[in-house]
């Protein structure tokens, strides 16, 4: 519906302003624009054209069994509100047009809330995933009804009726699985501007954070986004450098999941934190972009390495505490009390956990925590996301 009206409007304006602006209605294909260089993000490509920006998004969605799921793709055309409306022709015909800067934003992924928060535009949030935002202001807004709720984060398809009532300029939609794609199509057919987001699917932690530049473009805060990201990148480089000077610390990131099972980080962006912070993951597995970064292992598989672990990230929101600390006891980490949980920034009473929000946006903070855990003398600022836990505690 939007596309048709744009076509009509631009046809009308073309007729009216006949003679100039012929170049604004020209079609744009792959080679037409100037790419905005992105150093880490693999699933985002940005191209600057005369008067608008094209964002191409592509991400495979990994499913739990390690199989490759369908690739999701999307093309966005970001056109300023105070400029002429673009006419989509050629390969851009099916793109989604977003008039920028957006002032009303709906987002069902908590990481998107964090991106906007870091850019200082959280007041533009009109609807979020649920009542579990770590940001007190946002959460209060939801409780008081000023901000709509469109479903429990990305675990369930979004509430289309709330979306329609809120009338956002753009709905940033995290697709958790294929089941939600029909919902995306339906949302579009209902006239909503939907932009899928794949920041959390990036295989590197800097790649995830670099998506802030898309948020910057959407909200008209491009400069702030670029500046923030450079700051993040610089800090990460510095921390990596400092940590690489030290011998690696053998460690394990595994939390108990009931029975005799443990959820262990073995690869991917999370594992990269450990490696970049100067740790040697005793349960490292080969990289595989199709698989998730953690695997469920039996206690027996952990026993061979447990007594070498000097640092153990044993706590997690999802941990199901076992009835005794029998397994951890054998590790040096247990004896010396170098046990940690990733629940540093959490508000259990509100069911809010910043690990799933700001941690995606500020990998510099996360890496600082890991370096601090492994090499305490290298970082002076206090822990943020990680926190030391007592023996036998898992949260």
């Amino acid at each position, binding site marked *: 519906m939007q596309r048709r009206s744009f076509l009509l409007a631009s046809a009308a304006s073309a007729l009216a302003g006949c003679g100039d602006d012929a170049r604004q209605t020209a079609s744009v294909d792959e080679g037409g624009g100037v790419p905005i260089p992105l150093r880490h993000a693999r699933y985002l490509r940005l191209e600057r054209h005369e008067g608008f920006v094209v964002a191409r998004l592509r991400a495979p969605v990994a499913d739990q*069994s*390690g199989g490759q799921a369908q690739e999701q793709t999307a093309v966005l055309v970001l056109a300023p509100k105070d400029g002429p409306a673009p006419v989509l022709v050629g390969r851009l015909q099916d793109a989604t047009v977003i008039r920028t800067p957006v002032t009303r934003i709906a987002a069902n992924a908590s990481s998107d809330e964090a991106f906007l928060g870091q850019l200082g535009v959280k007041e533009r949030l009109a609807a979020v995933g649920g009542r579990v935002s770590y940001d007190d202001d946002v959460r209060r807004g939801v409780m008081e009804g000023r901000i709509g709720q469109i479903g429990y984060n990305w675990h369930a398809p979004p509430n289309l009726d709330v979306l329609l009532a809120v009338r956002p300029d753009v709905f940033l939609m995290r697709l958790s699985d294929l089941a939600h794609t029909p919902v995306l199509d339906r949302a579009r057919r209902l006239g909503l501007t939907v932009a899928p987001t794949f920041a959390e699917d990036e295989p590197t932690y800097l790649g995830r954070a670099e998506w802030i530049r898309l948020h910057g473009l959407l909200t008209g805060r491009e400069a702030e986004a670029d500046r923030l990201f450079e700051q993040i990148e610089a800090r990460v480089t510095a921390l990596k450098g400092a940590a690489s000077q030290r011998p690696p610390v053998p460690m394990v990131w595994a939390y108990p*999941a*009931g*029975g*005799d*099972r443990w959820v262990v980080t073995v690869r991917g962006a999370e594992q990269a934190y450990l490696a970049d912070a100067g740790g040697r993951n005793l349960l490292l597995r080969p990289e595989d972009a199709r698989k998730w970064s953690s*695997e*469920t*292992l*039996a*206690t*027996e*598989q952990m*026993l*061979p390495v447990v007594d070498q672990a000097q640092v153990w990230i044993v706590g997690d*929101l*999802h*941990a*199901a*505490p*076992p*009835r*005794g600390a*029998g397994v951890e006891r*054998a590790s040096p980490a247990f004896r010396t009390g170098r046990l940690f949980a990733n629940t540093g920034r959490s508000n*259990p*009473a509100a*069911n809010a956990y910043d690990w799933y929000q700001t941690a995606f946006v500020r990998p510099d903070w996360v890496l600082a925590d890991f370096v601090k855990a492994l090499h305490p003398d290298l970082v002076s600022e206090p822990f943020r996301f990680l926190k030391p836990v007592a023996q*036998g505690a898992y*949260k």
Partner: protein
Amino acid sequence: MSAAFRPVAVSLAAAGVLAAVAVASLMVGQVMLSPGEVLTGLGSIGSGSMESRIVVDLRLPRVLAAILGGAALGLAGLMMQTLFQNPLADAWSLGLMAGGQLGAALVIVAGAVVGPGFLMILTGFAGLGVVAGSALGMLAVALAMSAMARRVGAVTLLVLGLMLGFLAQGLISVLLHFTNRSQGRIFAAWNDATFANVTWSDFAALAPLLGLGLIGCVILAKPLTALLLGDVYAESLGVNVPRFRRLVLGATILLAAPVTAFCGPVAFVGLIVPHLARGLAGSARIGVLIPATALIGAALTLSADLVVHLPWEQHFLHLNAILALIGAPLVILLLLRARSLRGGES
């Protein structure tokens, strides 16, 4: 083979199978051990060696829990089937375990109300809060079912039990809605029945309770046999039926509640094992069936547990799923063959 010897032979065979599966369970897992390594592990308790940690700290308690749990649930099923005169009765099918689930969930939710300190107690004291909650829940349902049993027929009672199960699930789902995610994890972890959670210190509570239940079962064997003919005949043979009902329910709870509390709700065992024992031993006398039921129950449960813990590459199987694969076809077979259950009798 004479009819009198057959039950003995069945018990001996079951014991043999049990021993073999137990040995296999100690050897097999994500880390495969040879018999020699198993023996080394058993012999070097406390040495901290890999073998002893795997065998003694991990596998042995699990195997023992599966054996005791399977035997206890089998006996509980035998008693319930006789008490309710219902071939499909057992702690799971009549909704007792659903009551246990609800009790456990209520305890966990109470933690949300009382505060995070309560949660620490829950997990610190070997989950004793959950244990007590599930035991009370089972008792409540057992009493309700016992009262209903006089008024409705066998299949109706079974449907009531299954409906109770759904009701409990619904209530639990709503309850957990009001807790935070970590409490939900605690409940989910308990609800996924497994013997791998049992530690050595748990046996201090488990063993005496199950022992009492077993003693109760043995003492009640004679009146239970009389009850095979029905309430009236049992009374005419000298059984004080109302008092006896209470005792049987008590013994059943002593057997089923601790297993459910420590290992989660285990399905099907109590339902099918008495039938297997009866069919193989060729006798319905309770005294004769007790050893056969206990041994077959232990063997079956341990075998299912072994399947769960085979070195699958990435998949973690659930105990109840394996038991269902064995149990559900058997129940279907039973329904089709048993005259008392055919034809929609009510």
